[in-house]
Structure formats: structure tokens, C-alpha cells
């Protein structure tokens, strides 16, 4: 079945960028009540770019693999670029559409990342981010 493509399983078994960043520029914790997915994203900003990014927590294969791929992708990207990301970018990034019931698993790491970036900019998260 597509949802558990080799790449997803492989990222789930060996997630990239797993752990904490001490002295992070910003971090954000997200918890999903329904699943019990629990994630914290840490970012280190240099200039206007993500210099380093890690995530910690526990979750299902979709949420873990998504976080692993997103953190790979976000490294070196500018804040403005990441702030524009939405659901479709995330689906494109992980290569599977998890369907309505599991969509939040795919987007929980993006939500935490974007919220961390808003926090860094001393801004309230926008509606698009809140609804992720």
C-alpha cells in the first residue's frame, strides 16, 4: 500500500534530525489529542535562514517520517519560504496523500515549525498555520 512506501518506513525506523537543540532560537511543542502524536521542533536561525533544525517526541510512522523529511528540507531555507508552506507542500514533500483522517499526522511537524518561526518573529500564528 502506498501510504507505507519504503521511504516512509525507512524515515520512521531511522528518523533524521532527531533530538534537541540547546540554545535554540525558538521551539514549539505540538500534541495531537486524537492520536497521541507528540512533537517538539527546535530551530536555530542565522540571518534569515534556518541554520539547524531538530525534532523530538513520539508519534506514528506518518508523523515521524514527515518530521524527518521536513527537517531535512528546512535546513538552509529562508524563514519567508517556510512560512509560505501549507498542506499541499507537505504532501508533495512526503510523497503520499494520507487522506483526511491522517492528514494531521503529516502536518503536525509543519505546524510546530511554523509556530516556532512566528514565535521567533514575535508574531501570532496566522489562520493558515492555526488550521494545520
Amino acid at each position: 500500500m502506498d501510504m507505507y512506501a519504503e521511504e516512509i518506513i525507512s524515515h520512521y525506523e531511522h528518523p533524521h534530525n532527531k533530538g534537541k537543540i540547546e540554545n535554540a532560537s525558538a521551539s514549539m511543542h505540538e500534541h495531537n489529542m486524537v492520536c497521541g502524536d507528540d512533537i517538539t521542533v527546535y530551530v536555530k536561525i542565522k540571518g534569515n535562514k534556518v541554520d539547524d533544525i531538530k525534532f523530538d517526541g513520539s508519534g506514528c510512522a506518518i508523523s515521524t517520517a514527515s518530521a524527518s523529511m521536513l527537517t531535512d528540507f528546512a535546513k538552509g531555507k529562508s524563514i519567508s519560504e517556510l512560512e509560505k508552506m501549507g498542506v499541499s507542500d507537505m504532501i508533495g514533500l512526503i510523497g503520499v496523500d494520507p487522506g483526511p483522517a491522517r492528514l494531521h499526522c503529516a502536518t503536525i511537524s509543519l505546524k510546530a515549525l511554523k509556530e516556532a518561526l512566528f514565535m521567533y518573529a514575535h508574531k501570532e500564528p496566522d489562520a493558515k498555520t492555526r488550521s494545520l
Partner: protein
Amino acid sequence: MGIDVKRIRRDFPILSARMNGKPLVYLDNAATSQKPRQVIEAIYKYYTQYNANIHRGIYAIAEKATQAYTDSKAKVAKHINASSIEEIVYTRNTTEAINLAALTWGEANIKKGDRILISEMEHHSNMVPWQLLSMKKGAKLDYIKLDSSNSELDMQSLGEQLEKKPKLVAITHVSNVLGTINDVKEIAKMAHKHGAKVLVDGAQSAPHMKVDVKDIDADFFALSAHKMLGPTGIGVLYAKRDILEHMEPLIGGGDMISTVDFYSCTWNSLPWKFEAGTSNIADAIGFGPAIDYLDRVGMGSIRQHEEKLTKYALESLEDMKNVKVFGLGKENLKKRGAVISFGIKGVHAHDIAQVFDSEGIAIRAGHHCAMPLVTQRLGESALARMSFYLYNEEKEVDKAVQAIEKVKKIFRID
């Protein structure tokens, strides 16, 4: 006396449906049950032949609707051995039934410093209303602990807590996570000896076994129609007549009053004083044939069938490597309902449910609305759960076992 599952299955139109291209295997009965055509047709018949408001119209179809609504209550009363329909209050669901007890009886009887005793295996529906009430009143909420097996209530803990003289013991009859059947009759006896009132959350018992509120000696008993072949939107609060007599209504409006002048009113008789406004008439009428269906098959036979299925499932799962089953083992079948929570090492419950879904099998994954039990006592973030009913068969258990094998294959687990 075995039940004729083949014949029963023909009464449930959805059981011939497909999910993701596979025949539907419905193993999420603890969440909600499927509905036989007798229930679906009764609702259709009401809307197409005698739709009218109840307790008002002086015309034939209104009288017929009122009669059907009252008949449904009479069936429930008889089914759980209540004294009369005066003791049967319709709510939306079990949660609302428990909240009704908390907001009326609790409001009047729980005072600052009083204690309310519940257990660690409660569903949120029998936990949060009491948390809210305790916070509001400055009362203390105590817990009956689980024993060392994390499967049953620790009766010594119950005894100790009762010494603190709680005003109320609110306890689940069957755990929706562990499947454990609590000896509510014994608990009620002990609680009454210490002067407490007893509320039993029957959401997971009423669908699956004979419930006799008089034999249990429950002061309150709550259940949901939708888990027992009936429609969504109907729940029941049973309470002893003298308790209901002394309870103030929660919601004011039409139908719950006897007389009204501009500044005061008197309440309608039981149970109507708790049912303000137009009720969920169609679904109440649909609940009648659901009770008839259960009575026709027989609660004893249903229980026996589920016990057999549970045994079969526990035996099928016990030798599977890296599969953990929660709750009592097969040697304790008499104390276990047809609910089997399980986990596969290294796989999140939602991924398990997703693979099951691809095989056409509906199971539940999550904390099952019992977060403290699942996360704090069992130490899991989420569990997968299969739960059976009268229409399930052994071959469906076999399919579930095959789906577990598939999960293990995808996740490269032994």
C-alpha cells in the same frame, strides 16, 4: 443455545458493504454498533407515515407518535428491569446521562469537602463530569486503584476509599479499554453500606449482557442506544424513582412543566420533567425495535457468543511475537467483555488501524477516551482495539490476525 450468526448478519444491511474494495469487517463495536434493518425501517416509517410532535396533537398520527415514543421507553424499562417508564429519562447519550446526574443530583447533594469516588479505569464521560462538579463545589475526587495486573479494580483500595465516606461511587460496568467486567453488584452493596449512592456507567455492558438495575441495586444507570443496535442521539439515565422525584430539572421549557403562570411553574411528572422541548422522537422510536431485537436473540446468548469469540481471539493472539494484549487473559473469560486492546511493538496504534483499514477491517486506535488509564497506568500513548458483537464471526478474527501479520511485514517486525 448458539445464535444463528448467518441469519443475524442478513438483518444488517451494512455488513454486505465493502470498505477499500474489501468486504467490511466491523470490529469497532465498543465505539458504536451497526443497525439492523428493523431499526432503520422504524425510523423511515415514522418519518413517512406518522411524523408529528408528541404529547401535544389531538389527532391520530400525533397520538401514534406519542404511543411509539412511550412504548420505546417501556421496552427499555422492562429490558433493564426498571420499575416503570418514570425511571427512564432519555438523553442524547451516556455522557449526557451522567452529566444530568452530576448537574442535578450532584448539584443538590455534593457540598464542599464531600468526596466522590470513581475508578482509574473510567471513560472520560464518567470522569470529567465529576471533576467539574468537584471543582465547582470544592469536593474531593478519589480513585479506586487498579490492581497490580493493571486489569482489575483493587478491591482493597475500594474498601479503603469507602472508609472516607464518599457521597457517590460512580463506576463503569465494563471497561471500554480493558474489557474488564466489574462486579458492580458487590461494589454497590459495599458502597451502600457506607452510605454512598451508586452510579453505574453501562455504556459497554448494556449492549452485551443482561442488565438488571434492581439486582445491581444501582441508584443511577446510564447507557447509549447507539452501542446496542439503536440510533445515535438517544441515551438513557435510569434512576430510582424517589431520587428522580427529589431532583430538580436541568433544562426548562416546553413539555417539562405541568402548569406555568408568568412568574412560576410546576414540574411535569416523571420522567417528562427532565425532557424539555421536542425530544429526539425518531431515534427514540428507532430504539424500540433495537431492544426487541436484543431480547429476541437473548442477552444470555449474545454474551455466550461474545465470550466464545473473545476466547478465540485471545488464543489467536497469545502466540504472536511482539503483540501485546491488555486486560485479563483467557482463563478469566467470565470477567471479560468482548473488547481486546492490543499493541504491536514498534508500531503506533494509528498505523496498525491504517493497515487494517486497507484490508477492510474497522478497528479503533487511540486513547479510547480513557487517557489517564491508557497513558498513566498502561504507559502507552495509544492502543489498537477490536471489539465484537453478536454479528461477528471467527473468520473475521482470522482476518484481523492476518492484518496484524501484514502490519508486521510492512514494519519489518518479527
